[in-house]
């Protein structure tokens, strides 16, 4: 007789029960998170260039190099090209601000206590949105945020110098519904004034978004802009001989995790 749906259920249940002893633990996931973060945040050219600039890593703030392997630090670079595209950052696990944004269509100020010269900002969205990120009043990043029509979950991730040395910093974020940005933000994104007008024009509405501001340090500065086409892990020998583990670029398979090229700049 021909297979029934019950037969198929039985087959799938039995066929998938043969992986005895195999498991995925929380530790496995933690390790993968760190690996993805490294790949997400490290840009290949910067790190390849970093092989020759390892000494520059050593001038990063105290403790950064020795703490690199997995547990505390992850190598970081700006997710998108900016005025100084080849600056790379070491992102610490010290969270300076962790806030939920419940209202779209308006600028939300997120104050944080500055502790060093640089910060890393991650901004994720619960709905398909277009997001803007200002630091110190300057529009530093923008782009699709949340699960878009192509079913890819996007987020903003930006790292850079944070400001004026006053001891306090403020990130401002805003989300608007996906599709409300003319041309999807292409080709070069909106100016700060255009973003202000768009956000004001949309008006307030309930939204779900999340901002995490993390301490970061400048690792090294290279002369070449970052590239993304690279693979595998690298080990940089620090000046003290200690290995500094990092990763080269975003793996193709993890491209949807984040690090979405900024419209018109990739």
């Amino acid at each position, binding site marked *: *007789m*021909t*297979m029934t*749906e019950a*037969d*198929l*259920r039985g*087959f*799938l*249940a*039995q*066929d*998938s*029960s043969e*992986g005895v002893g*195999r*498991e*995925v*633990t*929380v530790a*496995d*996931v933690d*390790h*993968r*998170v760190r*690996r*993805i973060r490294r790949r997400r945040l490290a840009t290949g050219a910067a790190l390849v260039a970093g092989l020759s600039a390892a000494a520059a890593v050593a001038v990063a703030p105290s403790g950064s190099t020795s703490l690199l392997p997995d547990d505390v630090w992850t190598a970081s670079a700006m997710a998108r090209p900016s005025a100084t595209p080849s600056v790379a950052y070491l992102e610490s696990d010290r969270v300076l601000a962790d806030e*939920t944004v419940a209202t779209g269509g308006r600028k939300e100020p997120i104050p944080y206590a500055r502790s060093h010269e640089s910060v890393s900002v991650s901004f*994720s969205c*619960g709905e398909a949105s277009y997001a803007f990120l200002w630091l110190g009043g300057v529009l530093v990043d923008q782009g699709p945020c949340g699960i878009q029509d192509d*079913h*890819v*979950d996007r987020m903003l991730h930006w790292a850079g110098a944070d400001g004026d040395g006053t001891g306090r910093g403020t990130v401002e974020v805003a989300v608007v519904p996906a599709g409300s940005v003319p041309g999807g933000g292409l080709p070069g994104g909106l100016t700060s004034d255009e973003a202000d007008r768009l956000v004001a024009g949309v008006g307030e509405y309930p939204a*779900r978004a*999340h901002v995490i501001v993390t301490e970061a340090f400048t690792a090294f500065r290279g002369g070449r802009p970052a590239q993304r086409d690279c693979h595998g892990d690298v080990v940089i020998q620090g000046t003290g001989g200690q290995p500094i583990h990092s990763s080269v670029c975003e793996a*193709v*398979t*993890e491209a*949807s*995790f984040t690090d979405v090229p900024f419209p018109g700049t990739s």
Partner: protein
Amino acid sequence: MADRADFERYVRQRSDRLLRTAYLLCRDWATAEDLLQTALAKAWTAWWRVGDNPDPYVYRILANTHATWWRRRWRGEEPTPVLPERPAHGGADLLESRDVLRRALDCLPPRQRAVIVLRYFADLADPQIAEILGCSPVTVRSQASRALARLRVDPAARSAVTMEG
């Protein structure tokens, strides 16, 4: 908002089932572990908005990530529209039959395989599958129908599931 303890509890409670789901999607245990680790890692980064029922979100990542890998990686297999004809012996050996069915499932495109796995292993309703895969319930039904037709119509698959004379 869900927190770290929730996530750890979820991984402990659900990882076995999710790993089996991942295996059925990719048909390789090592790849399944890789797939699930990646999916859970991505889920953790969005855990604050996953809500009380993380399964749909994790299933969605599993299905999308697997589809991406399937498209972009050489998979060491050559899908063919026609399975090799195999002699159907009376009282065919069950292990051999299962192997034939397994290979028939391997020939399904990732989307159809995902529908089959989510419907017949994860026991999800078509609207839930549609939400996970980002399509309409009608599309889910048509994908399932095509997949089942291939499994049933294919001569090798038919021989594999001929359990009784």
